[in-house]
């Protein structure tokens, strides 16, 4: 996609001032009919497909909801699936807010994961209170580096970030193959599994919901890191001078020039920050879920993140809820297959419908004849 500097194409930046948390929440609470209708339309479309395939849609949807939220265990799993999407969603959103399209969250997450996995195994014997911060720093730094390259190339050579991020995404996949199959990070006792050496106990994010509360829960402390990241995102963009400048750039190059920002510095900084979020997501997966870096562990966190960020309107709470929606599809979708016999591909189709319909705001809005416009005029920057 071709995001002009300053011309926001898909909803970020241009719309709302959103100064405080309270107002943020308040803004989301308008027009309950619309989202209900959106989801309902999508589910009906999906039900048609399910029927055509010879399955029972009611049983299917019951399985979907029960799979996602039916038991406390399911809820924790939905959250576990959502956590990396929150981080990569932030990575995409922070760039969108400032006028850049970061498709590279996928690659940035992997670099963060590799860096964190390496650090965690390199110093595996260190105690948690030393090792964990190190691993977090490595994860964030790895992602920030990979994002920063994109910003640097754009600032120095004007290379469109869409190209570099797509290329870098693929590049790290192959580098990862090498690192984990026949390279310096390949584990000794991998038994044919391309994976890195397991990280030390001190680097593992502990499960924070104990077995007594929710049996077998995997809900790890990454949720805390994710929450902190969301707060950091909000704070950065709406409470710091830098954030003000970045959003100004997102709203218009002229406004940004008036606010005195160096566009080159901004690009590098923003892409590094974005990469840092994604890298943290990679670190969380390694530390909280896998314990080591498996080749190919991230199939689509980075791409789903684009939808998460856009569905969430690049806003902190929106991203959280969009990520949970995706997490619900992941976990509930599996149950739809195992329990109602509905092919995982049909689940994907239903998910596509939900995305498609939610994206079609104006259709649903016109159906409910909502008064007042969602798009606010571009704010003037004094």
């Amino acid at each position, binding site marked *: 996609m071709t995001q002009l500097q300053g011309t926001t194409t898909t909803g970020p930046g241009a719309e709302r001032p959103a100064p405080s948390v309270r107002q943020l929440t308040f803004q989301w609470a308008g027009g309950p009919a619309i989202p209900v209708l959106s989801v309902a339309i999508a589910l009906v479309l999906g039900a048609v497909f399910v029927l055509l395939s010879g399955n029972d849609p009611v049983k299917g949807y019951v*399985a979907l909801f029960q799979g996602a939220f039916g038991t406390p265990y399911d809820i924790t799993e939905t959250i*576990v699936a959502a956590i990396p999407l929150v981080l990569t969603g932030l990575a995409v959103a922070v760039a969108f807010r400032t006028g850049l399209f970061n498709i590279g969250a996928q690659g940035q997450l992997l670099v963060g994961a590799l860096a964190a996995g390496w650090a965690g195994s390199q110093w595996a014997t260190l105690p948690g209170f030393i090792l964990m911060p190190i691993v977090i720093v490595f994860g964030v730094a790895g992602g920030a580096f990979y994002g920063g390259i994109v910003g640097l190339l754009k600032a120095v050579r004007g290379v469109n970030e869409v190209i570099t991020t797509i290329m870098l995404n693929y590049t790290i996949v192959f580098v990862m193959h090498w690192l984990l199959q026949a390279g310096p990070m390949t584990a000794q006792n991998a038994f044919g599994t391309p994976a890195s050496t397991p990280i030390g106990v001190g680097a593992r994010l502990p499960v924070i919901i104990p077995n007594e509360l929710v049996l077998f829960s995997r809900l790890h402390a990454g949720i805390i890191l994710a929450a902190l990241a969301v707060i950091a995102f909000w704070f950065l963009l709406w409470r710091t001078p830098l954030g003000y400048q970045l959003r100004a750039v997102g709203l218009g190059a002229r406004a940004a020039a008036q606010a005195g920002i160096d566009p080159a510095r901004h690009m590098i900084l923003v892409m590094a920050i974005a990469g840092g979020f994604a890298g943290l997501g990679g670190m969380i997966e390694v530390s909280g879920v896998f314990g080591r870096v498996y080749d*190919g562990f991230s199939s689509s966190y980075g791409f789903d993140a684009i939808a998460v960020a856009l569905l969430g309107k690049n806003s902190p709470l929106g991203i959280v809820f969009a990520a949970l929606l995706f997490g619900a599809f992941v976990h509930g979708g599996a149950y739809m297959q195992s329990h109602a016999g509905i092919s995982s591909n049909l689940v994907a189709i239903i998910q596509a419908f939900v995305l498609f319909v939610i994206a079609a*705001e104006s259709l649903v809005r016109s159906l409910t004849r909502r008064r007042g416009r969602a798009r606010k005029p571009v704010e003037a920057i004094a």
Partner: protein
Amino acid sequence: MKRILAFSVLAATIVASCASTGTTSGSSAPSGSGSATGQHPKIGLVTDVGGLNDKSFNSLADKGRQQAQAQLDVDTSVTESKQQADYVPNLTKYAQDKYDLVIGVGFLMQNAIWKVATQFPNVKFAIIDGAPNDDAGNVKNLPNVANLFFKEQEAGYVVGVIAATMAKNKVGAATHNTVCSMGGLPIPPVDRYIAGYQDAVKTVSPTTKILNGYSQDFVDQQKGIEVGKSHIAQGCDILFQVAGGSGLGYIQAAKTAGVYAIGVDADQAAVAPGTVITSALKKVDVAVFQTVRALRLGTFKAGDNSFNATNDGIGFGTLDKVVPDDAKAAATQALADIKSGKITPKDTVQVKP
């Protein structure tokens, strides 16, 4: 705004779903509540991320599951894992729903199987191509887990015998005395096939030239075709694919050039009749079926279960009519020799790209 409310709708349904009890019944797959063996047991299969149609071990495992459902009076269900983080919850859900046997496919699940099998000691598990690995990466066999291992190098060896015999005797279109192979990625489950293949060729026909390459992909056919064209340009006449969907491109390249190919995992004679002279079979479906059967008969064996020449776990597939009798005889003899222990095929690749 709409997003959070879309979610609130779902949230409202959480309450509704929680109100009805967690474990559901009446699914389209398993029915009944039998949790003890012998009473309509429930078998769950969790695939790897490649999907059910991966033309490799996922589809074979599913084939075994379907056979078991048809012939062994069990109820089965399958869950495709979409990403690696799903292994644990997919396995856990079956165990929570009191399935009798939960089968995981692939070496990437070794840690997941260990985690879940430890939490559910009363449920039986099986893993294809692996053994339970604890968090430190060490193998930790469990009393309720069967490790289903295959000796791919044995399958590679017997088809290598066929290839070498045909190359040596310049049978049909195989005029250049050169054979080759293509893997998806140089990982052990792939390389073991190639290792056995190369070992056989070096043993049976040391003068035959051997080529090797990788497509870097298990899906992309065009990449497989490119490697195939490259090998054919270097004189290769018999192309052994070990690359799943990408390998079909390798076979296609052989077909276009009018030379021969060898399939892998399943019998791929139907992919390109007249081109595919045989296939290196890894009978994952048999392994799954046998494990379910063992469960039914009460002979479930935890720990290492090896599927190799001795128990018909590997073999060579349908021979095309161009394969001469001496090649077939040599392969059959090689299979017997492996069974008896006379031949132990190497499992490390000698000829790299």
